[in-house]
């Protein structure tokens, strides 16, 4: 509040301000005296953003979400989620006279009759794909730089929930047009629900209000899609951003950048200008893509009818891993118990996927438990300096991408002239064995890079200049790095495995042993960072 009382006096001492300035000053004062907005503006305006391209991926997600909100609002003006059957009377010839639901009819009308409707539909859908993709990339950045460590574990969990929300929003939206493609997607979900032992059929009937597909599901998904899920998403984004401000931003190590400061541009005015411009670049890119490239041509698919399924039926990319998991399961896995069938071919992938997502959500807590590291971390770690974590990340990527690729197994088969069975078997291998190979290779590469860094920090880089000494000996001249470059190579911490320590009763619990074992696995192969003493010795 002190700043607000000072401002008028400071202004008065200067030359008399113009009428515009006086009005601005008065308005700002009026608002501030009633809302204390200046405190927030001061805090926000002074928030520092470090410059690194990978720190802007979350912004892509935020901006594409805004585009989704704007274009989605437009679509709600014209879309009617009713499943009442009508006959198509619009201008798309190959569907004229075909019975369909009102939902599909209005979705077609948006595409063919509403001015700008098709562009808005395509903007909405492309922005949705970009939204989830940028969230995924943002998550990978946070993971590989260890930016989820204390104090940001909770924000990781919120970010994870946003990822799940994005997938849920995407799936409910994908189902709304009630075309054949989306209906087939819903049928798969229905199948997965019905595979749940004992309660599956009950849940399915509860959700669909009838035997699949019923006449309720589109209205229900619509309410979820335009009200409940966006509300949760917006609330989570709010908390996510709030924690981002509270926790401050991470930064990569560099001279002058420590664990206790943030070096970068403040929001006002530099970053705000950059970010504002970036918003329009993201918006423009989406609109450009939407105006040039077809997405989800619902008119091709026809109204939903449970009998036909088109070749090349796939979900949008972010649900692909689930579809792929189903495709990868070997046949004939059903268990028949007392006349009841347990479709393990559906149940196993469902359980595996849930466990996989849960593992992503709790990873920060697992790692903190294994490393025993309770310090705050504000310096983003280079991936090579945490070889096991980077290896785990690479393994997860291979696991995910194996399932993801499996969702397009038929297209891989036709486009690369392979057999469908061969593609499936290869991807089964990639998904099951691939993660272990990826972990091992990545860890080795990280350790090798660490050794290279160590070598560079101690002996400098090779100049390629060969010098012959008077004695006849040839040497290659190494040049020392400058201090700025060297800092990046020596700034990381050294970790050691946790030791097993007896508890208060003098006993070593099984839990302790597991923890120590995991910790040893996490840290046993490591390259010690260059110490100050080694550097000093090297100089002489």
């Amino acid at each position, binding site marked *: 509040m002190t700043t607000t009382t000072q401002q008028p006096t400071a202004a008065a001492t200067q030359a008399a301000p113009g009428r515009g300035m006086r009005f601005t000053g008065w308005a700002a004062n009026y608002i501030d005296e009633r809302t204390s907005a200046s405190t927030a503006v001061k805090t926000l305006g002074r928030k520092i953003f470090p410059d690194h391209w990978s720190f*802007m991926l979350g912004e892509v997600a935020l901006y594409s979400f805004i585009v989704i909100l704007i274009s989605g609002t437009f679509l709600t003006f014209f879309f009617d989620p009713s499943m009442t059957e009508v006959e198509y009377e619009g201008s798309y010839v190959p569907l004229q006279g075909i019975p369909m639901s009102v939902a599909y009819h209005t979705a077609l009308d948006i595409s063919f009759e509403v001015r700008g409707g098709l562009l808005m539909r395509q903007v909405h859908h492309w922005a949705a*794909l970009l939204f989830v993709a*940028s969230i995924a990339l943002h998550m990978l950045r946070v993971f590989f730089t260890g930016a989820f460590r204390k104090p940001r574990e909770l924000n990781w969990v919120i970010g994870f929930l946003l990822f799940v929300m994005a997938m849920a929003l995407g799936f409910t939206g994908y189902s709304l047009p009630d075309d054949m493609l989306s209906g087939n997607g819903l049928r798969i979900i229905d199948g997965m629900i019905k595979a749940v032992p004992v309660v599956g059929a009950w849940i399915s009937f509860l959700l669909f209000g009838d035997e699949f597909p019923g006449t309720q599901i589109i209205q229900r998904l619509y309410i979820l899609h335009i009200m409940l899920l966006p509300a949760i998403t917006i609330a989570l984004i709010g908390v996510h951003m709030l924690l981002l401000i509270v926790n401050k931003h991470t930064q990569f190590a560099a001279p002058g950048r420590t664990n206790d400061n943030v070096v970068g541009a403040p929001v006002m005015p530099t970053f705000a200008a950059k970010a504002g411009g970036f918003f329009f*670049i993201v918006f423009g890119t989406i609109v450009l*893509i939407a105006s040039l490239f077809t997405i989800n041509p619902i008119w091709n698919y026809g109204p939903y009818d449970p009998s036909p399924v088109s070749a*090349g*039926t796939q979900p949008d*990319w972010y649900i692909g891993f689930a579809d792929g998991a189903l495709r990868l399961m070997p046949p004939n896995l059903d268990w028949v118990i007392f006349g009841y069938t347990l479709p393990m071919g559906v149940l196993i992938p469902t359980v595996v996927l849930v466990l996989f997502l849960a593992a992503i959500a709790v990873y920060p807590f697992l790692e903190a438990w294994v490393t025993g590291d309770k310090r705050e971390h504000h310096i983003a770690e280079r991936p090579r300096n945490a070889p096991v974590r980077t290896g785990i990340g690479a393994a997860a990527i291979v696991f995910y991408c194996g399932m993801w690729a499996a969702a397009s197994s038929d297209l891989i088969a*036709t486009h690369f002239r392979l057999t469908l069975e061969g593609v499936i078997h290869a991807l089964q291998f990639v998904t099951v064995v691939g993660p272990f190979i990826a972990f091992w290779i990545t860890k080795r590469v990280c350790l090798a890079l660490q050794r290279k860094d160590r070598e560079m920090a101690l002996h400098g880089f090779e100049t390629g200049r060969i010098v012959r000494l008077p004695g006849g000996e040839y040497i290659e001249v190494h040049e020392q790095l400058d201090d700025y470059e060297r800092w990046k190579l020596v700034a990381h911490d050294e970790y050691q495995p946790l030791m097993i320590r007896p508890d208060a009763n003098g006993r070593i619990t099984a839990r302790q042993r597991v923890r120590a074992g995991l910790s040893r696995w996490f840290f046993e192969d490591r390259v010690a960072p260059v110490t100050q003493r080694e550097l000093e010795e090297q100089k002489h």
Partner: protein
Amino acid sequence: MAITSPASPRRFGRRSPLATAALLIVGLLATGGAYALATSTATAETTTTHSAEMIEEGGKLFAANCASCHGVLADGTAAGPSLIGVGALAVDFQVGTGRMPMAASGPQAEVKPVQFDQEQIDQMGAWVASLAPGPALPAERYIAGDGDVANGAELFRINCAMCHNVAGAGGALTEGKYAPGLANIDPVHVYGAMVTGPQNMPVFSDMNLTPEEKNDIISYLRYVDENPSVGGFDLGSLGPVSEGLFIWIFGLGALVAVTVWLTAKSN
């Protein structure tokens, strides 16, 4: 009245013992004839008469180009199936799309540049048709592509899309086989494929899809060919896979490039 005597109707006129049999014969002839008439009007084939010269030329072409796999008498060998009864339409489809003669054994015959001109194809078709009756080329009106597009699209979704994709982009089958894409295919080949069921394709007989319905499907495919996607480039009409790859590579790729540019230090 003499006519009402009880004995005479038993032996003469409509009360004769032979009357039942005669009635049965008349009835059978009528239904059979009507059925034959109906089915003959329902077949779509042109009543083509192949000249002896044409058949002879076709026989020579067959012996020179096809007999090594299909046998000198076209009765099939281990390398190729019998062609007795496949008709001129099958020859027109297989040779007219370049699938036959096959370049190499494989999961299925590939489309490649056509090896013969239409006259030669017709001659071979005439020779094969002379071996046994089989499907002949359809009448012009059944491949005109002027039918009911909406009905064709509906029939296409129900009968064809599970292998060929709703947009006719093609799809995978088992063991390296596939359903080819259907863009810009000669209507007579579409018709021929439906009638003769080449390779892995099922036969869609006239009982299953009438010639008019086949024409509707041809009309729909023609509509798709002539009307490019209203939404812009269609990315191969492959659905969400190409869309997902596009947004990751070009959409997110472009924006990452922008982020690198925005945070680049001015040197």
